[in-house]
């Protein structure tokens, strides 16, 4: 595609949704450029070993069995930030990841690939709280404006209530024991618990404890296999075509839908080019404002550069790369570019349960965090935030439960006897091995605080290190005391839920910043207007989570980021074509 109407920078969770909408509803030709690899595409059979093809436009290029080979769901193989296949770095795995300077006790977790960070997510698709739109003074648009786009996104991504298994039943027991009622709505204004709205197809009805069949697509299995594989790439059911994988990350939902436009002569076309890292946004002087004219990108394998001209440019490279590219392109910065980053000021509250407590609830002595969705049930408290029940494989569990803290080592941390947890901080040594021996009856609750955007927090250009794409991003984030207070309240609720369900030991990790949910670093109302068009550069739109105006109140941001991107596609079509 040599002459696209729109060029989109980034094929993560949001870029492919925008591309599909622009082509289908507005008849536009769209080129999507992605800096990372493309998994499960025949044109790149060994995406981490050699360059492969250049561009893909044919939905038949997608190959689910190839995806199975690549997404091995091995924990270190997938998640190790240096060598995992789900890392942020060049597709060439003989090279190091891309360096981000994070000069604090913190962890930045991103994936560069077609599908972006949605290639390793739990598939949680709650909507933002209406409160975060209508009662926090950040948003220039109403919640109701976004609801139709939520509904569209939920249809395309098969979003529905997650299945309850043993570990969820323990959470429900605790939440109800603590006095919280079930919520039956997607538009949450009250406090309570509910099943996660997840972008994962249901398991089949016949999948129960008596099921002894095959989980293979070729043998007729359809839907979710309860394999708890979603954070490692989620390729089940094994053998299924890419678009029939149960979990609908962007690469298995919006990407195939975008490529389908090439088989329909009545709509526009979408081309996606991986291994294409955009290094510059081109502009001309317009009538009073700069005007975006396209981009320059660098082929990550050959090093050659290419310039693409387009009528509209959409920046969808994520909350770190979008502001970094803006700044490296020398575009105007009036103080908010890269700033206002929210990250749900996470914490992580761990309960260890005795066998008999679990057996009383389920009739079986183990919760088995490796069975079922990684996160299938949640708690909501608009105005404060929320929490979600998590089950993962043990490498991730050991890191998240015991080896990531801002409190210091638990052997030196005194616990306030008035607090509802028994220990806090890093757990190491014999104690760590004891806790991990209880892996099958351990569950954690992830706290998602409604942290609000602050100008001091976010992304700037590092003044020391650069890579082949320009100065690297430097990330700094500190909580506001209000954010700490909300996080403390949610942590206390989580500890009470654990104890109500029968946990014998509750541990508060007291996480340092974990940049996993990232929102609002190019926020609507500050950097972009209500159309998501940059105030200072015409024809340049921000089409990813960075355009969110805050952290949507605490719920996981993917559904909101994609819904806003779909709305932005409509605004682009109406404004310029």
């Amino acid at each position: 595609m040599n002459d696209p109407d729109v060029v989109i920078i980034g094929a993560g969770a949001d870029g492919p949704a925008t591309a599909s909408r622009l082509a289908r509803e507005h008849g536009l030709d769209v080129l999507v450029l992605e800096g990372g690899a493309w998994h499960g595409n025949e044109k790149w059979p060994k995406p981490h070993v050699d360059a492969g093809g250049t561009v893909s436009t044919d939905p038949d290029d997608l190959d689910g069995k190839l995806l199975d080979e690549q997404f091995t769901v091995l924990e270190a193989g997938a998640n190790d930030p240096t060598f995992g296949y789900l890392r942020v770095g060049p597709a060439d795995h003989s090279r190091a990841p891309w360096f981000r300077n994070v000069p604090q006790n913190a962890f930045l977790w991103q994936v560069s690939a077609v599908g972006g960070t949605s290639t390793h997510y739990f598939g949680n698709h709650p909507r933002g709280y209406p409160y975060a739109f209508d009662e926090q003074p950040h948003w220039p648009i109403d919640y109701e404006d976004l609801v139709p786009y939520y509904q569209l996104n939920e249809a395309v991504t098969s979003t529905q209530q997650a299945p309850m298994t043993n570990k969820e039943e323990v959470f429900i027991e605790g939440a109800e024991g603590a006095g919280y009622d079930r919520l039956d709505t997607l538009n949450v204004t009250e406090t309570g618990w509910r099943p996660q709205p997840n972008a994962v197809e249901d398991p089949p009805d016949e999948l129960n404890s008596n099921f002894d069949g095959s989980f293979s697509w070729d043998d007729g299995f359809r839907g979710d296999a309860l394999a708890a594989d979603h954070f490692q790439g989620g390729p089940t059911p094994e053998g299924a075509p890419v678009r029939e994988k149960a979990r609908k990350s962007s690469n298995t939902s919006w990407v195939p839908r975008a490529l389908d436009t090439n088989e329909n002569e009545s709509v526009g076309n979408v081309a996606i080019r991986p291994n294409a890292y955009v290094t510059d946004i081109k502009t001309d002087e317009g009538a009073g404002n700069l005007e975006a004219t396209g981009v320059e990108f660098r082929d990550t394998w050959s090093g050659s550069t290419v310039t693409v001209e387009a009528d509209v440019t959409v920046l969808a490279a994520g909350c770190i790369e979008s502001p970094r590219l803006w700044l490296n392109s020398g575009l105007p910065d009036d103080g908010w570019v890269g700033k206002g980053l929210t990250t749900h000021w996470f914490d992580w509250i761990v309960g260890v349960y005795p066998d008999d407590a679990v057996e009383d609830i389920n009739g079986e002595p183990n919760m088995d965090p490796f069975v079922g969705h990684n996160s299938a049930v949640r708690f909501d408290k608009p105005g404060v935030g929320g929490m979600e029940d998590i089950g993962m494989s043990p490498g991730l569990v050991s890191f998240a439960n015991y080896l990531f803290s801002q409190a210091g080592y638990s052997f030196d941390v005194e616990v306030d006897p008035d607090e509802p947890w028994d220990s806090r901080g890093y757990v190491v040594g014999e104690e760590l091995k004891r806790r991990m021996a209880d892996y099958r009856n351990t569950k954690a609750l992830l706290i998602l605080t409604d942290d609000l955007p602050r100008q001091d927090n976010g992304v700037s250009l590092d003044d020391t290190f650069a890579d082949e794409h320009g100065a690297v991003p430097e990330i700094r984030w500190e909580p506001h005391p209000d954010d700490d207070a909300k996080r403390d309240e949610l942590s206390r609720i989580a500890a009470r839920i654990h104890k109500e369900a029968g946990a014998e030991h509750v541990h508060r990790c007291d996480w340092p910043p974990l940049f996993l949910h990232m929102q609002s670093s190019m926020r609507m109302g500050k950097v972009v207007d209500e159309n998501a068009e940059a105030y200072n550069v015409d024809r340049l739109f921000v089409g990813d989570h960075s355009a969110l105006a805050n952290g949507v109140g605490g719920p996981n941001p993917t559904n909101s980021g994609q819904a806003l991107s779909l709305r932005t596609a409509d605004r682009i079509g109406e404004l310029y074509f």
Partner: protein
Amino acid sequence: MQGLGGLAAVSMSGATVAEAEEALTEALPTDPHTRDTYRAIVDAIIPETPQLEDELGPEHVPGGLEVELEKFLVWDFNHFHEIRLETLANTGGTDPVTDDAPSADQLELSLEPGEADSDLDALLEVDGIDTAVIDAVIDDLNDLLATLSGGLLGSSDEITTDDFEETLDFGTIEALEITIDETVDEDETGPVDFDVFVETANETSNTAIQNYPYASLFTIVFDIVATEFILLGKNEDAIDRGNEEFPAGGTFVQLSREDRLRCLWSIVDGGAIDRLDGLLEPIVTDVGILKFVVMAVNGLHGFGYYTEWSGYEDTKTATPTDRALNVPPGKVQSRRQTEYPGPQSGHAADWRHAVPGGFDDPEADELDLDSDLKGDDVLEGIGGDTP
């Protein structure tokens, strides 16, 4: 000296990536001091636990050292930051794109404890460190010591240069040099190859690595931080100057298991790297990264030990695409300790929907949202835009 730009050229061609991989999958670049320092950390976080045998079973006895987890830490630290020729300040060619881009000189290090009277003398030979720096560090330590009670030296004693010299120990290192070729063509681009030369009494190693060789540098930093830790009397257990378990290590491995971790934590929460900035800055170009490193030192035990990593056996530090899992992922040592069966294609389990009939979700124009949050949903004084 290893030439620079060779692997870069290979990488850029795209045609002979296999050759580049072969070069990069050579034996893990490490030296005894580096190895024993990380072994001492692994031993503190995931120790051998014979005391658990009777209670939990013999499979819970071995720890991280049994699967050589220190190799995981070394590999990850040596492979997480590629430095490129075109971004250095003094290689000409492309203009450096940052205000304070490091020069090749800043990334090089020459430390020769064996050639000097003491480790401190060797440290003072590193470019950028002089006696004024060590004097300032010791002044800071004494100021801090005055605010502390007790301590190894007693609160009334002042730390002297001799104290620092006696405590600082880089273990078996007789020479550590990190160099890059200075004869680079101005128009060359691509990853820099670093040459890491380590000499000990018994062996020398000379390794080319395509990324910044942080692993060895961090162990030097840990010895310096441990020296401050001991001089301030922060160690709660006696030091063991002849730790036979980690014989090649320096000051850091002389600390007890828990003190090693307390020492690392002083980097994050104790102001150690601020007080030691003058000593550390010539060794680590951006000292701020050390807080991130402590996060990683702890967290990598999760990404290494409790995953399938040890099952890669002799390919565990190969280039990722050359790793081969030789032990089933549910059978590696740590998985026998957690009873995780490894990845499965699915699980038979009873499941149900919690909300019969699904969520209530009217069309947008039929939404009737209560604009006031209920009950205790709003914390007093919280909400709205924050500064």
